[in-house]
């Protein structure tokens, strides 16, 4: 996984994120003045736009958008910014997966890059959201951070996003699974993803530490 925050000049927070062959730029602007129809009287309004690597946004991107929104909303301290707006724009540079069949890798890339960009922007967060993709192969083996090839040959695919508070995954924000699997598989996936998320969290802290030391 490779991240670089502060990548864009003219937005408040940004992050260039790449994992294997998935690549995305996240841009965060806020808190800014909302349009009248977006304004919420007591809390921060959220606008998320996802631009695909190729072509115009379709229902597929709206589906990813909605999932990202569901994951990011609980991490924000919404009531700190009444009648304000936070704009998140995600531009995919490389999907890294067969777009007509899958969206798992892009979803995780969007969630993780948004978290980095939000922290970069200085918007108040109650915790951070980090996620990972896991596939179960025909031979019942678990693969984290799969490639497009792994996805195609998988029996089932799973996206797991945790909320991290005080360096521990405390809250399961999203579990999005497709394919053929049973209860046991789900438990195995959750266990495996928790290990991965802890690792991602460690990387996140390391990144923030080096960033602060460079100031």
């Amino acid at each position: 996984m490779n991240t670089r925050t502060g990548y864009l000049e003219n937005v408040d927070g940004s992050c260039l994120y790449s994992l294997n062959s998935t690549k995305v730029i996240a841009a965060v602007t806020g808190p800014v003045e909302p349009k009248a129809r977006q304004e919420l009287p007591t809390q921060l309004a959220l606008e998320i736009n996802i631009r695909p690597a190729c072509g115009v946004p379709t229902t597929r991107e709206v589906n990813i958008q909605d999932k990202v929104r569901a994951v990011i909303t609980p991490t924000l301290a919404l009531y700190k910014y009444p009648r304000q707006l936070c704009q998140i724009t995600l531009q995919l540079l490389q999907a890294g997966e067969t777009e007509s069949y899958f969206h798992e890798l892009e979803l995780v890339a969007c969630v993780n890059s948004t978290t980095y960009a939000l922290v970069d922007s200085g918007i108040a967060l109650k915790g951070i959201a980090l996620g990972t993709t896991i596939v179960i192969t025909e031979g019942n083996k678990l693969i984290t951070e799969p490639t497009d090839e792994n996805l195609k040959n998988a029996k089932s695919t799973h996206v797991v996003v945790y909320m991290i508070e005080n360096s521990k995954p405390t809250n399961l924000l999203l579990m999005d699974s497709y394919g053929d699997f049973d209860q046991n598989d789900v438990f195995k996936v959750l266990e495996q993803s928790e290990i991965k998320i802890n690792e991602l969290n460690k990387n996140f802290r390391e990144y923030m530490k080096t960033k602060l030391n460079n100031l």
Partner: protein
Amino acid sequence: MSTLVIPGDEISVDPERPVVLGPGMYNDPVSQRIIPVNAGLLNISDSKKGQTIYVDYDSKRYTPAVGDLVVGVITGAFADSYRVSLSSFSTPVSLSYMAFPNASKKNRPTLVIGDLVYARVCTAEKELEAEIECVDSTNGSDAGFGLLENGMVIDVTLGFARSLLFNNEFPLLRNLAQHCKFEIAIGVNGKIWIKTDEVKETIACYRSISDCQGQSQEKFQEIIKNHFAQVTNTVEE
């Protein structure tokens, strides 16, 4: 003492004694937990009155806080106040006609749309429009506030603006002063207004300040020297 904190980290506070929360800290209204909401260096100071906690972090978007010195642009004029923008796309703040030195009902300030002002934030409630003033409200003097004429504005990050304004050890302004005379107004909203006698000096100052942002202090001298050399070496025709 300062340690790195990430949003959501546990902070140890003495629940028996009063706690004052500064920037980057938040008391969650539902769980009543005190948590940092920004990634940065945690500062806890303990005094007899209580504990003060804040997170030192850098960002680009300014949210008004009482007492802040800011540089704003007039974007509108109403019957009894101006509308002032402190950063692009943020909710504007208001500057009352009565918040000027020697103000009275008949004596109106003469600012027009597009003018720059140096002011102090006097009220900042998150539910309400923030207000700024161009007068020291304790004694009614102008205290250096008011219209900023000519010059140029540099947009910088909030952390950089704060170190320029509050850190006396910060060498940038002293280094700049070795090359030219200048007037400067630093707003903690990340806007720096600078005015010199000549346009080329202004340009050199502008470029120097922009480029010194994010660089180590040892490099300042050289960056400034290069920019001044560049503007003085150009031949005027």
